[in-house]
């Protein structure tokens, strides 16, 4: 249990720092940035206290907001995906989630990918809608969502593969 708290706090701090120091400055093709800090939400244990999880997600988004001067857009996006996460867990992992035994390092690639794409897309959709904040620029929002989502999913997948401890 202590180990879990330690791992998650370390992950929280590391992901926020990596996001604001490195990933926010990539600006691939001028505007495409990956938002890999949501790995914290993706990898958070599935059978944990939901209230604490919601609050931590809010805090995560708010810290990124503070560093990137973006009001509350990251916080809003993070809280939303933290709230809808069970839906995606259920649809991606099915029975495993019903029995509360989802362990990300044991899951197959394809359900993991489905789960990640779902959460990342929702997160980016809320993030960029709130950032642009202009209904007449729907195309710009969609363009940003698609390209950044691809970037984020690829990077998240690489990170989870690289840092999973017991490789097969």
């Amino acid at each position: 249990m202590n180990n879990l708290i330690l791992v998650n706090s370390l992950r929280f701090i590391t992901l926020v720092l990596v996001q604001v120091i490195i990933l926010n400055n990539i600006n691939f093709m001028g505007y495409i940035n990956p938002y890999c800090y949501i790995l914290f939400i993706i990898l958070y244990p599935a059978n944990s206290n939901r209230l604490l999880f919601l609050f931590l997600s809010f805090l995560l988004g708010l810290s990124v907001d503070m560093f990137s001067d973006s009001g509350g857009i990251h916080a809003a996006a993070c809280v939303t995906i933290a709230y809808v996460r069970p839906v995606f867990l259920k649809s991606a992992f099915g029975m495993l989630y019903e029995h509360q035994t989802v362990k990300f390092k044991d899951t197959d690639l394809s359900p993991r990918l489905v789960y990640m794409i779902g959460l990342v897309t929702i997160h980016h959709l809320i993030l960029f809608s709130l950032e642009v904040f202009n209904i007449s620029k729907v195309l710009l929002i969609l363009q940003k969502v698609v390209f950044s989502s691809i970037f984020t999913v690829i990077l998240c997948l690489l990170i989870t593969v690289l840092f999973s401890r017991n490789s097969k």
Partner: protein
Amino acid sequence: MQQIFDFFFKNKTFLLFLLLLTIALSLTIQSHSYHKSKFINSANFLSGGIYSWTSNINQYFNLKTENEKLLEDNTNLKSLLFNQPEGTAISTIDSTYQKYIITEAEVYKNSYSAINNYLLINRGKKDSITEDLGVITSKGIVGIIDKTSEKYARVLSVLNTNSRINAQLEKSGHFGSLKWNSDSPQFVQLEDLPNFAPIKIGDTITTGGQSQIFPKGVLIGEVISFTNDASGDTYTVDVKLFNDMTNIGHVYIIRNKDKNEIINLLTNPDE
């Protein structure tokens, strides 16, 4: 009463979600209006400290370009100094009264890919930096300070959809307001320029001096194209910035000593 408690317990996750979402949304909406984003910003000891730490590392990679900029700036200033007309030697310039006080600052964080971009600089209240001071580089304007803490200040970049800066055509003095349509970090838009102004592609745009933030005549950019507005009596002008907003190392903060006096005069006209 019991039922109300039951309701709260049953839906506590949803209610917490709603509460947090409302906080986040209100912060977002606040950040979309100028001077309202009070609580969450990078001008605090934590993010300022971390950005200063990374900037200490980053600045070594830009030493060469920074030096070149400095040399270029010095060359311009030297040629201005030596080419002054006879009779206005340096000693005759009254040095007892300076209207503008210039402070240099280092940029800790710069962004240009978002819709609302901000910079973080390493001067704050302890260097007597306050809100609404202009920030420039040797090439042109950068933005306006919109938030200060003890050691840091946040600059509302010209690349921010909330930014409005008074700007004019250098040769004729017709003025409009400078905005950004969030398309490209190289171009900003000058709006509400009267369409009888004699404008040509390649003309220089400078600050207007109508507000007390920038002195008159600070360079902004050159005219790339101009179109008639929907209403038909004003131009919207695409302006290419002289500044490369994607690469800013050091900036100057301009403080107008007469600003308070002028503002007092304008706001209390019947005294």
